[in-house]
């Protein structure tokens, strides 16, 4: 039984008192509160609560610096965002730009906003900022020009700020107020206004496709589902508040998902139950043809669930089946029932057995070499959901119960898998996990690890990253937690960025690692080194370090420094530098934590790895 919203606020209040005791259930209880006013009040109080009092077991909070700049008074966005993020694994530090200062703060080098050093900058846009006062309802060409002019000013400010700060910058499509639309009385004119306005919104969306660090939230589209007044005219005229608190909360839910993606808190694995979730009924009792799955309700609702899971899988979400069943019965299903939308090959892992599901989830995390905190568990049984909530607090749980027609929406409602972008690596992810499994089976044929590694025929290609590789490396850095030396923020001014691709006899792993380097004279500094957990334990990191060391020595450097910061998630990465012969260094002023002397050159390269080096076009990899 969870406390009432009022009681939860009361518990929060107590946490501000000196000597308050920990309340580790508070954040998870807060997720049950839907009232936006209570959520905003909670956010205001949470700002003054020491986070170690509320941190949940098994869920370390990831820090993220967020700047908030609105073209209007957005009083509730910061507290709503704080509540939303703290309850989903991110500890934000929020800087709010003073009302009316947005453009100035974006464009002025050295502004307070820039000095804050945000990782994410949310720019909240309202229609009043774009619309010229007293626009002529008979002259849409003039309106269109005026809107474009405003847009151009914004575009240049955003472009310059993104380049200077390296911050992810987030814009939104803008809903046009009802009174503006009703001011045009002809239907033809109103249609024209709609088109002119949508052109502005299209330009905002296109900006996100054109500039690497810029993203756009399609707020206009998101609001359609929320059936709310976008603004309260009284508060708009009295206090320049262009959005109601409900509009702010619709925006915040979307913005928070983006912030989680930047902070590396997005989920990666969908561990999904079979009976009652992917089809109706019980496979073991009803048989492969007797289950509910097909063109008519409720079978079509279950097919829709499969369609959504398939869409997630195709974009890189790792799907695992967690079912209490006979493996043989499940295997037969694909042969027997043509209505299955999901192929068996869409699953990266099957945990089909009679053991408790918390144990199955642990097995899956081991098999995929992923943290439990990256898993979303979906089940129709209240018992299984409660079991996993209690025994594995790091795992997110979605309980699908009741009408299966509601399942697809609820599966996606938490936006748990949202990422900034998806690419080729994501589309091939499930196949790579299958190849990984073949590698593991293959390994069993060898008595020594060395023999096995030799038999893999691993090839590495290291290149200076070009523009497209830089973008993919930034994405890799955001999703990678275990082998990530300083955390998810990507260095913006590195002299040299190297991309590492790996292939072996089982397939092409693609881009799996990146190194960001500051090439300063006699001491080169590795600002960050990130590697996908898929390729752990194959000596790849040592081959990469050997390459960097040789490159530094050839350029006349005598020391190779390496930055390291304990993020609470990167124990796997922490072991790398000491194992490669780096020694700790005391560098309080700088970022370096380890150093390796380059004379004589270290011999780190494992002899089972073949190196293919290639230079990109001159200057392409540096910026």
């Amino acid at each position: 039984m969870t406390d009432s919203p009022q009681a939860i606020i009361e518990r929060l209040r107590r946490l501000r008192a000196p000597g308050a005791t920990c309340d580790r259930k508070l954040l998870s209880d807060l997720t049950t509160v839907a009232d936006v006013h209570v959520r905003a009040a909670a956010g205001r109080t949470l700002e003054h609560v020491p986070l170690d009092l509320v941190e949940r077991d098994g869920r370390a909070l990831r820090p993220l610096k967020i700047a908030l700049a609105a073209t209007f008074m957005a009083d509730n966005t910061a507290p709503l965002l704080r509540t939303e993020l703290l309850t989903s694994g991110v500890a934000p530090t929020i800087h709010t730009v003073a009302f009316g200062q947005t453009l100035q703060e974006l464009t002025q080098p050295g502004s307070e906003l820039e000095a804050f050093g945000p990782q994410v900058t949310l720019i909240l846009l309202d229609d009043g900022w774009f619309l010229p006062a007293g626009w002529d309802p008979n002259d849409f060409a003039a309106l269109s020009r005026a809107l474009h002019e405003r847009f151009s000013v914004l575009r240049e400010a955003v472009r310059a700020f993104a380049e200077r700060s390296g911050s992810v910058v987030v814009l939104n499509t803008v809903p046009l107020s009802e009174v503006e639309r009703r001011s045009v009385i002809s239907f033809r004119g109103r249609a024209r206004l709609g088109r002119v306005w949508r052109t502005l919104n299209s330009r905002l969306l296109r900006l996100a496709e054109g500039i690497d660090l810029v993203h756009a939230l399609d707020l206009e589209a998101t609001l359609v589902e929320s059936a709310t007044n976008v603004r309260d005219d009284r508060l708009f005229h009295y206090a320049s508040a262009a959005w109601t608190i409900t509009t702010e909360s619709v925006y915040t839910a979307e913005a928070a998902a983006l912030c989680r993606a930047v902070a590396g808190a997005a989920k990666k694995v969908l561990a999904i139950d079979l009976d009652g979730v992917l089809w109706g009924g019980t496979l073991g009792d009803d048989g492969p043809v007797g289950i509910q799955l097909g063109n008519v309700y409720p079978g079509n609702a279950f097919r829709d669930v499969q369609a959504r899971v398939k869409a997630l899988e195709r974009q890189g979400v790792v799907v695992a089946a967690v079912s209490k069943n006979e493996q043989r019965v499940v295997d037969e299903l694909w042969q027997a029932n043509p209505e299955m939308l999901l192929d068996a090959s869409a699953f990266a892992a099957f945990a089909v057995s009679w053991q408790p599901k918390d144990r199955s989830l642990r097995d899956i995390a081991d098999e995929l070499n992923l943290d439990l905190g990256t898993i979303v568990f979906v089940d129709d049984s209240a018992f299984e959901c409660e079991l996993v909530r209690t025994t594995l607090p790091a795992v997110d749980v979605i309980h699908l119960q009741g009408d299966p027609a509601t399942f697809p929406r609820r599966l996606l409602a938490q936006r748990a898998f949202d990422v900034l972008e998806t690419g080729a690596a994501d589309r091939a992810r499930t196949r790579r996990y299958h190849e990984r499994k073949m590698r593991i089976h293959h390994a069993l044929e060898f008595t020594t690890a060395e023999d096995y590694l030799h038999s893999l025929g691993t090839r590495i290609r290291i290149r200076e990253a070009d523009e497209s590789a830089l973008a993919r490396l930034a994405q890799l850095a955001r999703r990678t937690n275990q082998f990530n030396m300083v955390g998810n923020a990507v260095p913006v001014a590195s002299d040299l960025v190297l991309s590492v691709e790996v292939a072996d006899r089982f397939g092409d792993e693609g881009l799996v690692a990146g190194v960001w380097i500051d090439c300063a004279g006699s001491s080169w500094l590795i600002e960050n080194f990130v590697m996908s957990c898929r390729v752990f334990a194959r000596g790849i990191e040592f081959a990469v370090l050997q390459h960097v060391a040789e490159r530094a020595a050839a350029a006349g450097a005598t020391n190779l420094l390496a930055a390291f910061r304990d993020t609470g998630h990167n124990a796997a990465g922490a072991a790398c530098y000491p194992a490669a012969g780096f020694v700790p260094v005391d560098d309080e002023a700088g970022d370096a934590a380890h150093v390796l002397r380059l004379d004589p050159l270290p011999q780190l390269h494992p002899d089972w790895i073949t190196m293919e080096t290639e230079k990109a076009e001159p200057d392409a990899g540096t910026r």
Partner: protein
Amino acid sequence: MPEPADDHETLEFLREAIRDITDAPVEEVGPDARLAALGNWSSLAALRLLTTIEDSLGVWLDLREYLAVETVGELDTALRDARQTNDESS
């Protein structure tokens, strides 16, 4: 927010809502308490209280009348009036 069933619960609801927004202890938020004298009171706090009340009770206040209210008791009265007017007009 807990929803008051009757008018006589409105004052209790108000006091808690004011406490949530201003952090003033409920004991200090009596009918005679002046809103402007409460700690953390500001024009933004006033608007937060307004929207909280309206969304929780399903009423719509005239902003000019709301801004003219000085004490918790006056606000309680304004709210009762508004609930009655809103009921009649709906």
